[in-house]
């Protein structure tokens, strides 16, 4: 049965003409899980997706683990009633939201960022699906010839069951933490990528081109397998503010990088201020493999996210570049983890945080060297910039070393935008706002230059928007 996805007439008026990329895919069945979480809801999700038994059992076991685990007693305060959340919304049910429901500040940001009309509807949650089939289609064809698989995870469960099952839930098992268990029970969407041996993809794969309500949902689940000697750069998310009436986002991202492989995973997220963003990201890097996380966090009420690299075999490397921007009413508890499980592995963490208007940012990081991982090196640099006296920054570095012959370095700095620096820039004709903005852009430059061009431009614009009206 085809479902009518047409938004109410007043939305169309507000949004203008239908964009040429504005495809709507008919879906079969209509389902909206009731609020709350129990075995019935979880089974319903599995039924709707017509999943194999193993996945249903995986979900149900995960639910039990979720229920048995206490809330984390570190990080930020989570005031969330798990029974007051919808865990599964079929995209067809999203039409109830209208453009008028979207807060004005979000609309203004869309304007300033110049987000195309069709994307605005998706990003605001007004429109259920946004897919650019032209772009995605040609991309897929090119990749498919090389044996690359790039699809959403639900499709992968159906079409690539053996490959998926070999790795799914092995890097981040459900019992890893409460929110990984939650995601394992109710996950939906996310990306599945397999890059075969020796295949090097020389352009970034972007979820941006294939975003739809399922793949960018609240509980997405991403799995990336980079086979021996293969290379991929995956870019997730988009810099426009993600607006949702639901207050919980809890994703799981699992990555395997085999011998001599390379993987870079770039995320820039800018959540609306009501969101709890609790994400588990972990990669396992094997012999001489390189895993890089580039992780940018803006917005949200509370973000807890610590991308990790487990260096499993000799010569593996892990690099994590993390940036957080906390403004009024926001707490960014972000960081990184490096775990050295084999000899001669090396890791590097660079963390930058900015706090303004009473925002709070924390760096929380782990450097662990396991017994036998001789000759391993870890280098951690975390810098915090505080823009005003109301804002706050903390550093929680955890170091666990079970081996003698290793090298661990940790440097931390906290700075405030100084009167002298501002005066210097202003004496050259910059306004106070322009001067602060320039100091902040300079501070995050090491991250920006690692981003693909269009993301770098958008990130800079976002920072400018964040800085607007922050002084005066």
């Amino acid at each position, binding site marked *: 049965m085809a479902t009518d996805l047409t938004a109410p007439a007043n939305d169309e008026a507000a949004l203008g003409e239908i964009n040429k990329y504005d495809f709507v895919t008919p879906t079969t069945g209509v389902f909206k899980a009731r609020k709350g979480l129990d075995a019935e809801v979880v089974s319903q999700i599995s039924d709707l997706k017509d999943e194999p038994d193993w996945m249903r059992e995986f979900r149900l076991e995960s639910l039990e683990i979720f229920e048995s685990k206490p809330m984390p007693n570190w990080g930020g305060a989570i005031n969330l009633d798990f029974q007051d959340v919808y865990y599964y919304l079929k995209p067809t049910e999203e039409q109830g939201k209208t453009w008028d429901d979207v807060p004005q500040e979000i609309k203004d940001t869309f304007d300033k960022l110049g987000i195309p009309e069709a994307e605005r509807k998706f990003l605001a949650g007004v429109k259920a699906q946004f897919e650019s089939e032209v772009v995605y289609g040609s991309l897929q064809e090119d990749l498919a010839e090389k044996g690359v698989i790039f699809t959403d995870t639900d499709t992968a469960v159906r079409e690539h069951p053996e490959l998926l099952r070999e790795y799914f839930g092995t890097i981040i098992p459900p019992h890893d933490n409460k929110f990984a268990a939650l995601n394992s029970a109710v996950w939906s969407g996310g990306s599945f990528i397999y890059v075969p041996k020796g295949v090097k993809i020389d352009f970034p794969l972007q979820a941006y081109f294939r975003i739809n309500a399922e793949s960018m949902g609240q509980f997405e689940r991403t799995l990336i397998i980079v086979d021996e000697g293969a290379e991929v750069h995956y870019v997730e998310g988009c810099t426009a503010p993600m607006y949702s009436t639901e207050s919980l986002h809890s994703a799981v991202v699992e990555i395997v990088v085999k011998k001599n492989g390379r993987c870079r995973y770039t995320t820039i997220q800018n959540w609306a201020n009501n969101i709890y963003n609790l994400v588990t990201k972990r990669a396992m890097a094997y012999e001489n493999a390189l895993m890089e996380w580039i992780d940018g966090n803006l917005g949200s009420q509370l973000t807890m996210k610590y991308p990790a690299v487990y260096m499993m075999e000799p010569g593996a490397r892990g690099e994590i570049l993390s940036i957080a921007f906390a403004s009024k009413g926001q707490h960014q508890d972000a960081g990184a983890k490096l775990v050295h499980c084999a000899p001669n592995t090396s890791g590097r963490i660079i963390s930058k945080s900015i706090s303004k208007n009473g925002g709070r940012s924390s760096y929380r990081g782990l450097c662990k060297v396991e017994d036998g991982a001789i000759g391993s090196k870890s280098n951690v640099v975390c810098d915090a910039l505080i823009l005003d006296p109301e804002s706050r920054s903390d550093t929680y570095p955890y170091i666990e070393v079970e081996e003698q012959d290793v090298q661990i370095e940790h440097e931390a700095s906290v700075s405030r935008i*100084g*009167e*002298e*620096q501002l*005066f*210097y*820039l*202003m*004496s*050259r*004709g*910059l*306004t*106070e*706002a*322009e*001067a602060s903005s*320039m*100091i902040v*852009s*300079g*501070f*995050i*430059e*090491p991250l920006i230059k690692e981003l693909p061009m269009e993301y770098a431009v958008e990130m800079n614009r976002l920072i400018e928007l964040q800085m607007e009206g922050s002084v005066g």
Partner: protein
Amino acid sequence: MSDTLKITDLHVAVEGKPILRGVNLTINRGETHALMGPNGSGKSTLGNAIMGHPGYEVTEGSIEINGEDILEWDASERARAGIFMAFQRPMSVPGVKMADFLRHAATNVRNPERKEGEDLISMREFRKELKEKMSQLRMDEEFARRYVNDGFSGGEMKRAEILQMAMLRPKFAILDETDSGLDVDAVKLASQSIAAISQETDGGAEMGILIITHHDKLLDHNAPDFTHVMLGGKIVETGGVELARELYTEGYDRIRAAYPEAAAAEAELAEEATTV
């Protein structure tokens, strides 16, 4: 057009402590003024007060451009009105490239009415001009891509300050010990450059320059029309270029003897500085 920067009976306090105690000074465009005086006499304080540093509180007196009082203007507005200061110790701004910073600054100073977010001056013209100025200052092109003052040597910082002056084409420039930390050749290049920039500023109308210095080298190519001696927060004597020569060779003993009141104020300031 003859613009005038006029300072009248200026009193300035820093963290509540009075430093300047009634400074009078008038600078017309085209004039070069040397400001000399022992350490701690208030020379840099005067520079910072003219530029509008928020930490320097004007407790009495006025600073005017063409009769308009600018005390309420912040540093940005003063820069747009044509005032420039080459800093004694410029601040570094890591992550911000010289070229990006200068393009933004030049845009604002040249279009004082520009609103935030409006277009910057054309990249092409800006690059051409920057390249030209850098070559005049014998600066490597790579300099434009370096972060503002980040990891610069003392000499590089001073040259970068002169480059900024060249790009911003001010009406009035304060050079706060631009010669300190430079070797003889570098001072020569700097002073020649300053003289050249002064001539070409804003379509031929020259800069009014206030050179704060301990040395006479910078004055070789920028012979002052006036030399002012500051002592104890006041300008106690004004003369021509010969006064600069005298102070450089003879020191300040004659001045202290001639102005006992200012010398007492100087001693008082010095004592406070050491007890803080």
